[in-house]
């Protein structure tokens, strides 16, 4: 008994020593990063996002840091699991005392812990998760600590529908989606936005996320006479959809969400079939010079960069955060939150952020910032055709 107790004390002593080591440089400004980097389908997003945030931290520190202090990124992998994500959040806020958090990758994980940073007044910028509710949950409170620099589902759908309606010659548009919350949420948004354009979808089909053959559903789409198909599902299912289209030799104009940026899409469908789907993206590695430079820089350091868009969004989120800390002149949560709502003129990769946030708007990116993209020979490139050129601001109804 006595020996056990002594061992316990020794272990505790070691632990506290380890903690004191990690918090040695109290001068640094700590930013938490909490994302899936090894778990399921979102690991590529979390990893790419981290590369972007790290690049931004490097740039900021090279320029002398913020408030004369260095920025340090405290990284936590949530493996895509909500319980782990909650635990990470508690650790980052309570033990590491970070001033803000960037993350997570999964909407479900965000919804599991949003109350923690909100109660403890630690601003969060979500750089990947797309669920609409994330920034809305605390909208009505005096101060909302949740911000985002990512592609909100509804904003993506607004662009997809605008393209779909213009590209359709017969105005017969069909929907197909997986049966999960993600797919059905997309269907709901698409149906509502199509209505704003005066179009009712001619078919609305579902499949299971693990299905590998969608020919039956596609037969119904074909019979409905649709010439444009909007698909809302994750990368692997979308790849199987492409393969089923090839089986039927039926290729309507197909548009989908940014989920198709993930590499399983091109790996499963193959380079050639992957070129048949047009999808929304906030930026691609060919969009502008800043994007090209960031892509090259990360690739020089890491062996691959699966999803450039996430790196760009991570980079921009970190830059906005640094600008806000500078503006607040402090790292105190309340002041930082106020500074985020008024920060101005931040040069990011995707765009120059002029007053990206306000009291009522916590979305750094919107449909006006998005573009359409496509896989070409195994790489994501901007997609431009006569229809994309004819889309005006008035078409982007939401």
């Amino acid at each position, binding site marked *: 008994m006595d020996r056990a107790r002594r061992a316990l004390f020794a272990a505790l002593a070691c632990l506290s020593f380890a903690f004191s080591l990690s918090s040695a440089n109290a001068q640094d400004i700590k930013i938490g990063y909490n994302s899936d980097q*090894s*778990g*399921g*389908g979102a*690991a*590529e997003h979390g990893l790419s996002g981290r590369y972007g945030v790290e690049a931004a931290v490097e740039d900021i520190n090279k320029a002398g840091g913020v408030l004369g202090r260095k920025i340090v990124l405290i990284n936590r992998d949530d493996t*895509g699991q909500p319980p782990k994500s909650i635990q990470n959040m508690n650790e980052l806020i309570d033990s590491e005392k970070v001033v803000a958090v960037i993350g997570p990758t999964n909407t479900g994980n965000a919804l599991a812990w949003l109350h923690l940073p909100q109660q403890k007044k630690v601003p969060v910028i979500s750089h990947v998760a797309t669920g609409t509710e994330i920034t809305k949950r605390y909208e009505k409170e005096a101060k909302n600590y949740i911000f985002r620099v990512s592609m909100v589902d509804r904003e993506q759908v607004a662009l997809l529908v605008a393209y779909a309606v213009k590209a359709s010659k017969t105005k017969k548009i069909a929907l197909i989606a997986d*049966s999960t919350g993600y797919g059905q949420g997309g269907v709901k948004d698409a149906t509502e936005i199509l209505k704003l354009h005066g179009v009712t979808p001619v078919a609305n*089909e*579902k*499949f299971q996320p*693990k299905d*590998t*053959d969608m*020919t*039956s*559903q596609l*037969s*119904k789409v*074909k*019979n409905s006479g649709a010439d444009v198909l909007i698909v809302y599902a994750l990368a*692997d299912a979308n790849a199987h959809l492409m*393969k*089923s289209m*090839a*089986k*039927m*030799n039926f290729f309507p104009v197909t548009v989908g969400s940014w989920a198709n940026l993930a*590499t*399983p899409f091109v*790996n*499963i469908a*193959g380079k050639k*079939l992957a070129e048949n789907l047009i999808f929304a993206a906030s930026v691609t590695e060919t969009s502008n010079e800043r994007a090209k430079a960031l892509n090259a820089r990360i690739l020089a350091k890491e062996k691959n960069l699966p999803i450039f868009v996430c790196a760009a969004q991570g980079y921009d989120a970190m830059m906005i955060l640094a600008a806000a800390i500078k503006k607040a002149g402090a790292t105190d949560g309340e002041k930082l939150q106020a500074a985020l709502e008024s920060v101005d003129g931040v040069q990011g990769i995707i765009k120059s952020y002029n007053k990206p946030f306000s009291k009522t708007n916590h979305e750094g990116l919107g449909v006006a910032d998005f573009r359409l993209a496509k896989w070409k020979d195994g790489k994501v490139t901007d997609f431009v055709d006569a229809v994309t050129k004819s889309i005006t601001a008035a078409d982007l109804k939401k």
Partner: protein
Amino acid sequence: MEAILQAVLSGLALGGIYALVALGFNITNNTTKTLNFGQGEFLVAGAFVGVTLVLVLSGKGHVGVLQPEDVTLVKYLTGLVGIIAVLGTLGVFLYYTAVKPFVGAAGLAWVMSTIGFGIIIQNTALGIWGPAPLAIPSPLGNEVIRIGGAGILPQEILIFAVSVLVMVALDLVLLRTKIGKAVRAVAHNKNAAALMGINVPAIVILAFVVSSCLAGLGGLLVAPITTASVFMGLTLALKAFSAAIIGGLDNPRGCILGGFMLGLIESLIGLWHAELREISIFVLIIVVLVVKPEGLLGRKIVEKV
């Protein structure tokens, strides 16, 4: 019309996968009256061992992206040899650790122990390969073959052909050979079989080796269609088990029939209402269990006293 033909082709392709895995259930059931409930995870192991061998032979390490030109028939078949070696060994392990201690004993301890063995395999695979699926292009290419306007992939035809071939082979071995006779004798009555000079443990181990190898073969065959994923086992094994129950767990022909029926139901119901697919499958299972509990082609066992 074209839509129905497409649904039939897709259904047969899907059904072939279920049928192949269902055969694995049939073999152990016939010899030990036990089932490997970790069959799905053996499928996972097979898929990963196969894909990894192809990756290594292409000089890409154990996790990587395969291009269509990397996957030649020779490498694919080498993968198969590797699978037989690894999965066969796993089958022996499974028998000694998770089945033998409990077989014949009262209770259903082997249900839990085989599930547990499967989970151990799954998590080992998770540790080695991680959760991201590994895609492998088909060695037969991705050119769609057209039959009367409907399309099917060469890999799907391969799965269909292999499942039928394996069934015929099993049928022949069971009914026409000495070993088959021994297997049937063991299935019928272990003690009597032993008294007749049949090496019962050897026959039983053989059954587990063959069953594991079939799961591994299934994994290698479906990987080009579904990708190799640590989580692919459960759904496939559940469908395959359902197929075996519908067709008759003790009859290889029944297992094949059940597999193809399930595949066809899935794709044909999908033409009507995709969300009713699972419902119709499990309604069918209940109906079969009530009307003909031994399965459509199963044999009613009459115990003579």
